[in-house]
């Protein structure tokens, strides 16, 4: 909220991008969703530390159901956490196209599940909470900055084509663009493309997460 009130309001004064305040508010909701969804990875370490992992493995659910349930649970939790911020953003932004907004919210749901799946995947691969903390910090810095969450793609392109190349294939870019499109802040030539990008991101990390989770946790492999 303070980022909207302080950074959004003041920074919009110095930017040449038209209506940067609304642009930034839209991006901030998606950035926060990303950060909240990543948190599920830290829970994995806490459960391993406190012996909850053994309990979860003893439950009458398959490993695949377990990881899928955790991805969806982590994503939903993040969505609930970011809900008030999205509500405030919508209040600040004003009128929206209802159909486009519902589509963008669905895309954000999938994005949130995908980020949770990614966080779980990285957590079971890295195995050390300290290393995970560092890795996610660096990843967060790069993913957020090399996306359209804070600035339009055309400006990234004008700054550095390499940055723009990465920004083009960043799931956070797809989520931020779709949310802004749903909130009528920007127009998109083809909203299907970022939507497909998010579906691919979700499917990839849910699948990889399931396979790695199964492989890594048997026989105390998480320890």
């Amino acid at each position: 909220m303070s980022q909207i009130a302080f950074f959004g309001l003041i920074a919009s004064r110095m930017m040449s991008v038209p209506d940067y305040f609304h642009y930034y508010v839209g991006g901030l909701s998606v950035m926060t969703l990303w950060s909240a969804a990543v948190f599920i990875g830290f829970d994995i370490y806490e459960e391993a530390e406190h012996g909850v992992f053994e309990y979860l493995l003893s439950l009458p659910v398959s490993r695949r159901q377990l990881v899928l349930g955790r991805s969806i649970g982590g994503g939903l939790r993040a969505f609930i956490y970011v809900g008030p911020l999205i509500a405030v953003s919508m209040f600040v932004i004003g009128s929206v196209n209802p159909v486009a907004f519902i589509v963008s919210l669905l895309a954000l749901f999938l994005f949130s599940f995908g980020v949770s799946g990614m966080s779980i995947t990285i957590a079971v691969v890295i195995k050390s909470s300290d290393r995970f903390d560092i890795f996610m910090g660096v990843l967060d810095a790069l993913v957020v900055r090399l996306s359209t969450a804070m600035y339009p793609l055309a400006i990234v392109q004008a700054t550095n084509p390499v940055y723009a190349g990465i920004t083009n294939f960043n799931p956070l870019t797809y989520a931020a663009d779709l949310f802004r499109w749903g909130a009528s802040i920007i127009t998109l030539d083809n909203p299907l493309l970022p939507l497909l990008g998010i579906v691919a991101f979700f499917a990839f990390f849910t699948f990889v997460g399931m396979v790695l989770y199964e492989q890594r946790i048997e026989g105390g492999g998480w320890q």
Partner: protein
Amino acid sequence: MKAILYMVEHDFRNFFRYKWWLVGLISMNLADLFIMALVYSHMLSSSAGITNYFTFFAPGLAVTGLFASAFMIGREVNMERRREVHHYMLSLPMTRTELAVGRVLSGGLRGMIYMSPLLLTCFIFLGFPTIPQFLLILAVLFFVALGISGLSITIAVSTSSLEKFITARGLVYYSLFFCSSVFYPLSLIEELGREGKFPSVLVTFAEINPLSNASDMIRSFLLPGYIFSQSWVLSVLVFSAIFTLSATFAYMKIIERT
């Protein structure tokens, strides 16, 4: 004095135990400079009063790095309190004052060490100051670091759980970071205040914010268009004195009580 140095050594050992974490933090700060600041440079409007955001932001980045690292001591003190390590600390053969001063001092010094590569990066891209200016920058940043370390210890000993500490830290972080001239010129905040779009109390807060004062002081030595003001140094000294004393007092009293 020797006891204070022991405390500093103890805290430095803890600090360097997380060297990869520090490397990660520095890379995040550099990503801010080499990605975000470069892109923002291409988005500035003519009324912003800045022509190059990269050079504007580099001093602010060094100060935010100093803030984040000097604040880390609070997390350790809070953890010690929760895990009751402070009983061991209180049993050490040193006075309560030496213990408290040692913690505040080490927090500040750790901030200075962490900030040095960021300050060097700033000098490399903006040019080096004269020796007196350099010494003044180091002195002011050291006092800022001491004040931040004190602020963080005061919060750490006054909060009983990690959640409360993290919540308080978030509030302090966001207010001091975003209501300062680290990311944007102070003139923009003052302009919004004059237009009635920003509360005057927050405009005053931004003006006396030590992060604003330290960033603008470095800018005044390295960038054209900034005039050095002695009030910045005074403001930093007052901030540092208030929080160094309050941390020393709070650490001595609250730690003994729990």
